[in-house]
């Protein structure tokens, strides 16, 4: 009885690992392949015989994309657009999410529902009217305009996510702070935000990644060097007669570095548990 139980548990463990490893291989496989490709010289990439492990390791692809293309400009543009998007979302979204979570006003539920509804429309449907609007106000082909466009669909998401974290913070804490001498806004900043800090970090990272990787809006709303972001720039490097695999792979690796860096930094904040148990006895 005992023995068979144990072997059954062992079998379950093995099965779990098999499934997890398969999934991991699916997720990481393309990344690994891209990384390996970026280290190969052009001649070793397009070969008749599949070559998995590079025989000559070279960094010429990285040098090429950084010095012989406009990649640094693309990355800078992406950084600026992402930063502006996150900044707008964090400031306005935090205030909005707090209002939705704490105040009672007419149309509150309908507006929240509207926010959800926006997410249901395919992006292509939004782009054309957005393009017309942007052109009217002269924001086409500007980094700020692109950031605004991102905000239009990331802010609702941000508000929804953050509202959940605010809802979880007990209202009595703010009541106590208001009696202790805070204003409503002061209570939010001093008491609720520190409590929802991890949620704020998680939501911000989420929209940062979305803005960083976004392609379709960037393709439509940027036309020149000045505001083009890296996903569009890389795509445009695919020429009609040539496909610079090695350089593209190097560009891909370089552009996921900031995301990995971001995760490395905020991971601790995400993992640090909320101060559970401090509220109820």
């Amino acid at each position, binding site marked *: 009885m005992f023995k068979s139980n144990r072997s059954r548990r062992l079998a379950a463990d093995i099965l779990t690992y098999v499934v997890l490893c398969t999934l991991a291989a699916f997720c990481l496989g393309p990344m690994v392949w891209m990384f390996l490709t970026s280290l190969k010289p052009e001649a070793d990439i397009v070969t008749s015989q599949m070559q998995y492990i590079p025989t000559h390791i070279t960094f010429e692809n990285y040098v090429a994309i950084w010095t012989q293309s406009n990649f640094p400009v693309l990355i800078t543009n992406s950084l600026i657009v992402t930063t502006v998007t996150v900044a707008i979302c964090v400031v306005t979204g935090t205030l909005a999410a707090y209002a939705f979570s704490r105040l009672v006003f007419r149309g509150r539920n309908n507006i929240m529902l509207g926010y959800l509804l926006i997410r249901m429309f395919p992006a292509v449907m939004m782009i054309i009217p957005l393009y017309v609007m942007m052109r009217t106000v002269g924001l086409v082909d500007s980094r700020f305009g692109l950031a605004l466009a991102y905000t239009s669909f990331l802010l609702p998401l941000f508000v929804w996510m953050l509202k959940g974290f605010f809802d979880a913070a007990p209202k009595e*804490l703010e*009541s106590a*702070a*208001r*009696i202790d001498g805070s204003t409503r806004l002061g209570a939010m900043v001093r008491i609720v935000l520190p409590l929802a800090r991890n949620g704020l970090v998680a939501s911000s990272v989420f929209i940062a990644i979305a803005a960083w990787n976004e392609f379709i809006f960037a393709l439509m709303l940027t036309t020149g060097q000045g505001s083009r972001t890296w996903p569009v720039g890389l795509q445009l490097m695919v020429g009609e007669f040539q496909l610079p695999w090695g350089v593209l792979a190097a560009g891909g690796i370089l552009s996921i570095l900031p995301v990995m860096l971001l995760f490395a930094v905020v991971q601790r904040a995400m993992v640090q548990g909320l101060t559970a148990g*401090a*509220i109820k*006895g």
Partner: protein
Amino acid sequence: MATLSLKDVRKSYGSVQVLHGIDIELEDGGFLVLLGPSGCGKSTLLNIIAGLDETSSGDIVIGGRSVSNLPPKDRNIAMVFQSYALYPTMSVERNIGFGLEMRGTSVDRRREAVARAADMLQVTHLLDRKPANLSGGQRQRVAMGRAIVRDPDLFLFDEPLSNLDAKLRVEMRTEIKRLHERLGTSIVYVTHDQIEAMTLATKVAVMKGGYIQQLADPRTIYERPANMFVAGFIGSPAMNFLRGRLGRGKSGWQFMAKDICLNLGRSKEKLEEQEVILGVRPEEFKVVHHDIAAAFHGKIDVVEPTGPDTMLTSLIGGQSVIARVGPRFAGRYGDDVSFTVDPTSVNLFDPQTKLRITW
């Protein structure tokens, strides 16, 4: 001077009215308990006094100043919440001092005031801890420390003891009473526990369904409840209600029912011959062994010794009655039993209106 007056305070949420014209005056240094079953509007009223919630109409005066339009921070009150509401990210010391910090008190004076409050509540050794590392009783003390440190006009307590276990609850109840006596600051205290109300209050407001049923000192509430709801809500075991008739006897008015004939000993009062309900507290019943003096005759149903006394359930003319009798009571199930009652201790209620009949 009254510390607190509420004048015709009303509150509606949408179309639902939860407070119907509350009028309360609390004297300086008084201890007002808002007592009532869950959902009767106690917390709503307290939040309105605190300014956390707005009135629909009516006026609130604290310390001679109308505060209806002031935010909570300008009302000079302090509040202790049921969940304690300690700021989880701050140390105990900062929690207690937060109100002073917000008011721009200097660091030295703040430290001094926090130390004094912590000393009074015996939490000095906890000042460096975070709330998460405190026991329930310790959190309660810290929450009270946060309230007293600012020396407000009025303390507000919302069911502060209901998250504690029974033993700690009694201990903290005593602590709150001691604090009130030492500080002399007026308190409004919300509870659904009638024992807390009786032990702490100088004035009790019994509430039900958004109305104040009775506002009086605890003794009056207990001995002369305004209606059957108050009578039944206060006291454990509850007051006995016996149906019967009020009639004129040889020596004045009498309460009569099957196996009951209680001389009320009053002849001149303006009473009417009518159906009434007699309310008798369990401890008012006295067992007698000679029939002549007895007003109640019945049979013992259940005998429950509790230690200090014995709860005796008897059937009197088909009505069940609980009496609190001495610990050495010797009767058993099925025995005959007779009681007398001091007629001045009983109350009469109108069966229709449920109101106490004054006489």
